[in-house]
């Protein structure tokens, strides 16, 4: 067995491959409840995390010709990312468990030697109370770092803190 190749930072110039349309996962005509997922990413000094990007992947709705289920947003100079997607439904967990609706997130950028993985859940979902990941995080304040807030109709906000007080729960996958 040969171990997986080592990661290296994407560095500050990844914008050379940026295609801004990738931030809109509905651009191929996806059906379903269109939502905005947005937020601010900050570092250990509370400063905007610049020179990075956010990638998302969701298992529901399933990827199709009209829905790539994958997107990428630049993190702008204020630390903000902005994605348009379709609100996911629940998907199976391990065993007989059901997972609450969620979106998988990669955080990448200058100063990150390996992408960070986290998730966005949706505030107010009944299934959050029994979701295997959320319930495995004991401190409510830590759990809350994964739950997006409904800021306005169709707009969900998840701020991401890379380091220090109220640090986001990052996942070992």
């Amino acid at each position, binding site marked *: 067995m040969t171990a997986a190749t*080592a990661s290296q930072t994407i560095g500050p110039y990844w914008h050379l491959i940026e295609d801004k349309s990738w931030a809109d996962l509905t651009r191929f005509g996806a059906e379903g409840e269109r939502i905005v997922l947005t937020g601010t990413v900050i570092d250990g000094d509370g400063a905007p995390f610049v020179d990075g990007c956010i990638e998302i992947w969701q298992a529901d709705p399933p990827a199709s010709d009209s829905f790539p289920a994958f997107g990428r947003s630049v993190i702008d100079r204020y630390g903000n990312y902005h994605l348009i997607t379709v609100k996911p439904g629940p998907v199976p967990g391990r065993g007989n468990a059901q997972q609450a609706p969620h979106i998988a997130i990669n955080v990448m950028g200058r100063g990150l030697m390996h992408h960070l993985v986290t998730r966005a859940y949706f505030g107010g979902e009944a299934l959050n109370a029994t979701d295997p990941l959320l319930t495995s995080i004991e401190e409510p304040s830590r759990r809350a770092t994964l739950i997006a807030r409904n800021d306005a109709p169709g707009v969900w906000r998840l701020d991401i803190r890379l*380091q220090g007080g109220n640090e986001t729960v990052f996942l070992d996958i």
Partner: protein
Amino acid sequence: MSDPIPYRPYAPDTQPSLDSPDYLGTRRRHPLRPPHKLPHTVTETTGPAFSPALFPPTADMTIIDGRRALGERIIVAGRITDEDGRPVPHTMVEIWQANATGRYHHPADQHDAPLDPNFFGAGRVFTDADGRYKVVTIRPGAYPWPNHKNAWRPNHIHFSFFGPAFATRLVTQMYFPGDPLLAFDPIYNAVPDLAARERLVSVFDLDITQPDYALGYRFDVVLRGRGATPMEH
């Protein structure tokens, strides 16, 4: 429903530490808490499938509108496999880099070296059924960066791989054999395991080299494997 077969954990010391203090950029950007273990679910074991129809390949980065980029043309080719040696077919590969003078076609790069209007520095290719890919580009130059006194990045090309699952995502950098700057580079040296680090260095390959055209470098890449074949039901 049966549980998805998980991908293997990363082998010890083969991945760089997020806390790599010699690379100053990591100091305020690495989490202080250990990551929370998440057993793989369908979210982690599935991933995006990009089609060349919607994401057109650019396998030759050296020509823009028929005009040729300056610098040493090279061919980079290799095979993408999983940890068990199985090919990763039809997966998208993204590529970006500085030009021959060591300057990125990017407004934030203010290095005093000339831009080349005929080199943008971004490419995209797909692996074939056997996991092989090939891209034609320009050998990138070294450039200074403000990490420490007299800091220079070794020649490198950025590569982004997807593989079959969210869990197989990989972004890395390819280096060139014999580069004296590798010994001083905190990004390259952030990978603890020597063998894993050295696999980031491409290999000069006379079989990839095309006569009267360009030198060839082989850069093989391994994505995480599952170590098992899913049961069919």
